[in-house]
């Protein structure tokens, strides 16, 4: 915890009227009228024109460590997260070795703590080795130092209905949630892109919407039957939205996330055959994008989650079918959401705070994040400039990888500063602090 005090002057809290914020001892010590705060020896930040949101929380990040440190490490991923305005990220379990034991989740958690830029909250695998056959020791991960609450075989679907049912039931003992990567495996063997007229023309094997929707439908019925909590990862189709909307309406305890790229990009980009657009689930149609935006706006989809998926150059600089699936997301998420949701009038900044911080923190049971910007609350904050567009330069990203689909694209907002428990991790748009600086 830092002894430094920061006074953030004239900042628009959640896009509302300007105020001053005093950050001290890891918490928001005071919220005052603009210009009214006084703090001896504090560092002053003129935030006129900037918007303050609670630090962003990402339910779905691939940090690749252990195993693929050539693509990303907990440290580089933490830098990317801080640069994107995040103060907490959930690290997916599909590492090598898989995060399916207390030892591995504690290792990831410790690496995050050492990097010191965001709270790295490990996700535990549902099944051993993501094999889909035998439950991992979910309880041991839950009671470990990492206190795992989100369990996912992401990258693979828990497709066996019995295993899924048992997992949903079992995690109730420690208030956990199963986050499902909804993909019926047989319907998507060697699938390359969204199935539709375009896949037929491009000669690429289709990934039909029904392969997602069939699993989402089954899982909400299972969750309803056993009275469990279910989270659906990266919802990508209009049909899935309808199933979730109907389930919520009858009281099923289901939550859902959407990625920034599924809110902005469509399958038309695949006509370039450039694998930077290859992702799982695939980019969908314009109608799907519209449905996802509407669902995020009305709360049917609870959260934006990046599915940040770093890949080294050689896994993308090749022909389409040989390329890896996935795209970077942490450093562009806020800009993409601003373009897809705020510029379009679908969400205001309070809504963005709700979908990118409050709700994801609640889903993941992360008590110190997604809190109101008020006196006494943890000082986890992001300051963004809503009038400073930023052009994405892959070479300038903090991530170890460069596979962003937004290269050269101008996004409408910039992250100016990020605070983790009162300590800046980003100032003037540059990553500061963390292990590298403190050492």
């Amino acid at each position, binding site marked *: 915890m830092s002894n430094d005090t920061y006074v953030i002057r004239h900042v628009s809290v959640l896009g509302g009227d300007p105020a001053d914020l005093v950050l001290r001892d890891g918490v928001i010590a005071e919220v005052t009228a603009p210009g009214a705060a006084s703090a001896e020896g504090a560092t002053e930040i003129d935030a006129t024109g900037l918007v303050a949101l609670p630090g962003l929380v990402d339910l779905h990040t691939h940090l690749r460590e252990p195993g693929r440190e050539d693509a990303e490490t907990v440290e580089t991923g933490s830098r990317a997260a801080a640069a994107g305005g995040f103060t907490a990220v959930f690290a997916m379990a599909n590492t090598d070795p898989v995060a399916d034991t207390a030892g591995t989740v504690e290792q990831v958690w410790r690496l995050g703590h050492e990097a010191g830029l965001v709270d790295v909250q490990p996700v535990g695998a549902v099944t051993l080795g993501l094999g889909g056959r035998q439950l991992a020791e979910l309880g041991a991960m839950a009671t470990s130092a990492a206190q795992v609450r989100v369990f996912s075989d992401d990258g693979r679907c828990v497709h066996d209905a019995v295993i899924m049912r048992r997992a949903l039931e079992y995690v109730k003992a420690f208030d956990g949630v199963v986050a499902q990567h909804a993909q019926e495996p047989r319907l998507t063997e060697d699938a*390359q892109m969204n*199935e*539709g*007229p*375009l*896949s*037929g*023309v*491009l*000669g*690429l*094997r*289709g990934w*039909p919407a029904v392969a997602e929707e069939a699993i989402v439908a089954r899982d909400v019925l299972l969750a309803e039957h056993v009275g469990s909590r279910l989270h659906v990862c990266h919802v990508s189709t209009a049909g899935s939205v309808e199933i979730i909307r109907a389930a919520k309406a009858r009281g099923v305890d289901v939550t859902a996330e959407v990625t920034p790229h599924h809110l902005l990009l469509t399958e038309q980009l695949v006509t*370039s*055959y*450039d694998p930077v657009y290859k992702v799982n689930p695939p980019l969908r149609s314009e109608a799907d994008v519209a449905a996802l935006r509407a669902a995020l706006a009305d709360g049917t989809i609870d959260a934006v989650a990046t599915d940040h998926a770093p890949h080294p150059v*050689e896994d993308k*600089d*090749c*022909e*389409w*079918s*040989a*390329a890896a699936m996935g795209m970077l997301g942490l450093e562009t998420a806020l800009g993409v959401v601003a373009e897809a949701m705020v510029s379009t009038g679908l969400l205001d900044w309070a809504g963005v705070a709700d979908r990118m911080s409050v709700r994801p923190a609640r889903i993941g049971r992360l008590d110190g994040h997604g809190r109101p910007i008020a006196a006494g609350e943890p000082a986890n904050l992001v300051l963004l400039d809503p009038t400073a567009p930023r052009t994405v330069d892959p070479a300038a990203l903090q991530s170890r990888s460069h596979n962003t689909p937004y290269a050269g694209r101008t996004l409408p907002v910039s992250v100016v500063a990020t605070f983790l428990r009162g300590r800046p991790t980003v100032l003037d748009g540059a990553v500061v602090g963390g292990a590298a600086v403190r050492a």
Partner: protein
Amino acid sequence: MKRHLLSAADLDRDDALLVLDTAAELAQITDRAVKKLPTLRGRTVVNLFFEDSTRTRISFEAAAKRLSADVINFSAKGSSVSKGESLKDTALTLEAMGADAVVIRHSSSGAPHRLAHSGWIQGSVVNAGDGTHEHPTQSLLDAFTMRRHLAGGKGDLEGRRVTIVGDVLHSRVARSNVLLLATLGAEVTLVAPPTLLPVGVETWPCATSYDLDAHLKHTDAVMMLRVQRERMNAAFFPSEREYSRRYGLDARRMAQLPDHAIVMHPGPMNRGMEIAAEVADAPRSVIVEQVANGVSVRMAVLYLLLGGANLGDGTEA
């Protein structure tokens, strides 16, 4: 003409007619005992084959050699191409060799597109078949063959009725043919079991049907596509016998065709599966002629893409 030939959609009607007319002219010249033209002397054409296809490679090789180009055959099959980066490495090697045109065959849809647009090479790229995407020179040779038999060897194919039968879903030949034949004014009907038609086929510039017998009487050219026997293992159809019974072209079905109608197949054939041996060898079968026309059409494509000197500029015996 565009700089690359990646899809039959790259050719508008004028481009397509130019290729076909040029091919006709080249066929005439090479028929007149002149086997070799000097037009592409000093130019380098690389045949880059990541997938086995001796017949297509030989056809392009013969076409390039008859235009006096230097030909380099690069077969990547068998080398470590499972990981994609070798496409880039190979491209950079070819660029260093000064390839003016790269003829590429690849099992991955879009690989020629990637090669043409990634900035790896400068030369023209000709798609010699990519995955389940396209095979534009095959469609050109098919159109050339149809024009000879059905349109007096000139002009377009306005109003000619073409029936394409078989595994459309996995066929690059079908995709290119639908596009090119529509450009040339032909009326195309795809006939296949519903499992072997792609999702979205209703948006293609053609008709579709599940019933072969209903169409044969109104067909000027019937093209049988190769059907791999392994498809039945993925439940696309129940058995070879059932496929053959419902969608194979046997003598009984051939007898329903109008007298002038021709039978085509891009090869290699599964005799007894999609086409009966007696049909493949019948007088109205133009399958062998398709192969010969392939060389002329590929000569025309290379000639036009590489901007060779005028035809008749001087020939050598």
